[in-house]
Every structure is written in C-alpha cells, then in structure tokens.
C-alpha cells in the first residue's frame, strides 16, 4: 500500500518515490515484482498520470525499477541496493567538493557560478 498526502509540502512525485523505495526496503516488494501501471496508480490516487510517470522515470534512472516495454514495469534486480543510494545527496557532496577546490584555487563565488552556468549551457543535452 502507498499513501500520499495532497496537502503535504513534499511534491507528489517525491512522495511516490519515497513510498515505493520504502516498500522495497521493507520487503513489501521484491526484485522482479510487477508494479501497477502509471494509469492504474494515477486513477487509484486520483492524481495526474504525468506525476506518476515522473516518479517512475526517476526511479528508473536510479535503477530501482525497470520498464520492459509493453510488458510493464518491474522492480529492478538490484533495487534493494539501489534504494540506499541517494543521488541528490551524492550530487550535493560532489558539488561541494568541486566548489571547495575552486575556492582553494582562488576563484570567486561569482566566477564559480558563471563557470557552472556556462558548463550547464555548453553540455546541454
């Protein structure tokens, strides 16, 4: 079971991600288990299917779930290990390390910001 709170400040897609990860951690879901379709979950929760799609997309990126085409969405074989991994936390620590290195090299905060913005623009997909 998953529960979402519409009035919570936490975005709905994030609530879904947390609940699905929790279901895997607490062994309500196992590797290879099928997950409900985006439509089913969106209807059951009476939320927009794009919200569920976004949650599934991010979970797939984190290798917590995998989509097997028309056959549906399943829990990733390494989901139990991957749910522990916090991509945002890792990203924060990596950026902090980089920023500290640039500061040590003498770069000002504004130069670092400009460099980051340019890098983001130049490496845009």
């Amino acid at each position, binding site marked *: *079971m998953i529960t*979402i709170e519409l009035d919570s400040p936490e975005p709905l897609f994030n609530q879904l991600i947390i609940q699905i990860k929790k279901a895997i951690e607490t062994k309500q879901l196992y590797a290879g288990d099928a*997950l*409900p379709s985006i439509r089913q979950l969106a209807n059951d*929760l*009476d939320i927009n299917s794009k919200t569920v799609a976004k949650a599934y997309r991010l979970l797939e990126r984190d290798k917590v779930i995998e989509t097997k085409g028309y056959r549906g969405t399943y829990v990733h074989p390494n989901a139990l290990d991957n749910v522990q991994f916090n991509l945002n936390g890792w990203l924060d620590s990596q950026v902090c390390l980089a920023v500290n290195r640039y500061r040590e090299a003498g770069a000002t905060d504004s130069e670092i910001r400009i460099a980051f913005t340019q890098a983001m623009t130049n490496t845009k997909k």
Partner: protein
Amino acid sequence: MFDWISNTTYWLFFSQAIITLVVVPMIIRNNFIDFARRYGMTQYPNAKNAIEDYLLSNIRIFKIVAAGLFLLSFAIVSHAAVNQAELFSWDNQAGLSCLFFIAIIPVLVMAAIQKRFFSLLADYSDGKRVATLKVRGVRDFISKPMILFIFSGQFLFIGSVFYFVNHPFDGFGGYLNLLGLAFLDSIFIITIYFTMNNKRLAMIKDPNQRFVGQQNAISVNVTIWIVALYYLCLTLWISGLDLLSYRIFMQSLYIHLMFLMVAFASKLPASFYQGLEEKR
C-alpha cells in the same frame, strides 16, 4: 381462438413498466442510501450533515423523475391495451425500444447523483489517498468461465449470421449484423475500461473495498454482455424460424432481466462493508 401471445404481451408491457420504473428505481435508491449512510458516514464523519442534506434533496428529485416516467409508460401501455393496438398505435418493436429508453432515464439520474456524491465526499476528504502496489489486470475482474461465455457467444452469433446469409429470411440485415455485434462489444469494452479506470473511486479509501466495488460492477457488466449476446442469437433464430410473435415477448423479458441485473448490481457485496461497522 384465444391469442395468448397478444394478451400476454400487454401484461408483459405492464410488468415491464412496473419492474423498470418502480421496482428497479426503488432497489437502486435503497442501495444508494444504504451505501451513502453505511460508507459515507463512517468514512467521512465530518460530512454527516452534508450527506443527509444531499440525500434528502436528491432522492426527492429521483423519486419524482421515476414516478413521472412510470405514469407516462403506464399511460402508453394502457392506451395500447384498451385499444387493442400496438404501442403508440405504431409498432410494438419500436414502442418497446421507446419504453426501454424511458426506463433508462432514472438509472442515468441515479448515476449522476452518485457522481455528485463522490464529489461531495472529495470536499470532505482529509487529503490522504491510498493505493495498492498490486497489479490489476482484466483477469482479476473477469473470470475464465465468463471470458469463455463471451467468446462462445461471439462465435455463436457470427456462425448464426453466416448461416442466415445462406438461408436468409425477410428483414435479415446480412453482414450488417456483424457491425451491430462490433458496436455492442465496443460499448461493453468501453464501459468495463472506464469502470476499471474510474478516478471517482479514489474517494473509497480502502483499495480492497475499491476493488470489491469495481469487481462487482464489472461482473454485472460482463453478465449483461453475455445475456445480450445470447439474446441476439436467439432473436436471429426466432426470426429465422418465423416465430416473430415470440420476438416481442423475448425482447420484453430481456429488458426485464437486464434492468433487474442492474438493480441488484447496485448493491455492494457484504465484503465491501466488512470492518466498517466497528469503526462506527
């Protein structure tokens, strides 16, 4: 000689008017009130007064609509019976279809009342939504024997059409019947699809209860679909065997049966209410 079919037909029309516009509306009204009170008031206690007000005003409208339509149907049938004429002094077959469309109005009114009731519950919702992570497919809602009945009904009808293409009778539509079958199938498939993907049911908090409600509605839909398929086959054979006087008889009985099934389907199974009484 006493023409029992003609005389029975009038009684059947009276019975149809009573069943479809008195008995069935009474059953669906009672079932809805039962659901609104037993479920709505236990799961949404803060909406208790709003639910009572809603029931009071909407059920009155529903009763007026059903009573008015019953009187209209009764007058139509009485006029035909007194004058020993066909319905609307026109044609029994077409008249029966008109009576069917009249009878369907209270069912549609009740569907609208239920839809607005769920919107009312949404206004009093605590903002929490619960869903199951279990995958639900068509097979969870439709049993194997039912699928078998649907397919055998399709084959039987298609086979009958092919038979009568080679042995036609007066008024036989030929392969157009297959188009009719496709239309019938589409209506039921769309209805089942929308029942499976009904967002309004999110107001039923427990996913298991939601599933029981959906399963109940879909089972009845499928049963009506199966009955419709075999009824169509039967009408083809009745026409093909030149037993036309029985056709009206069969059609009226079919309408009786269909409406009664809809009425009984509106009652949710006891398992739906399990656990609610303790919460009260």
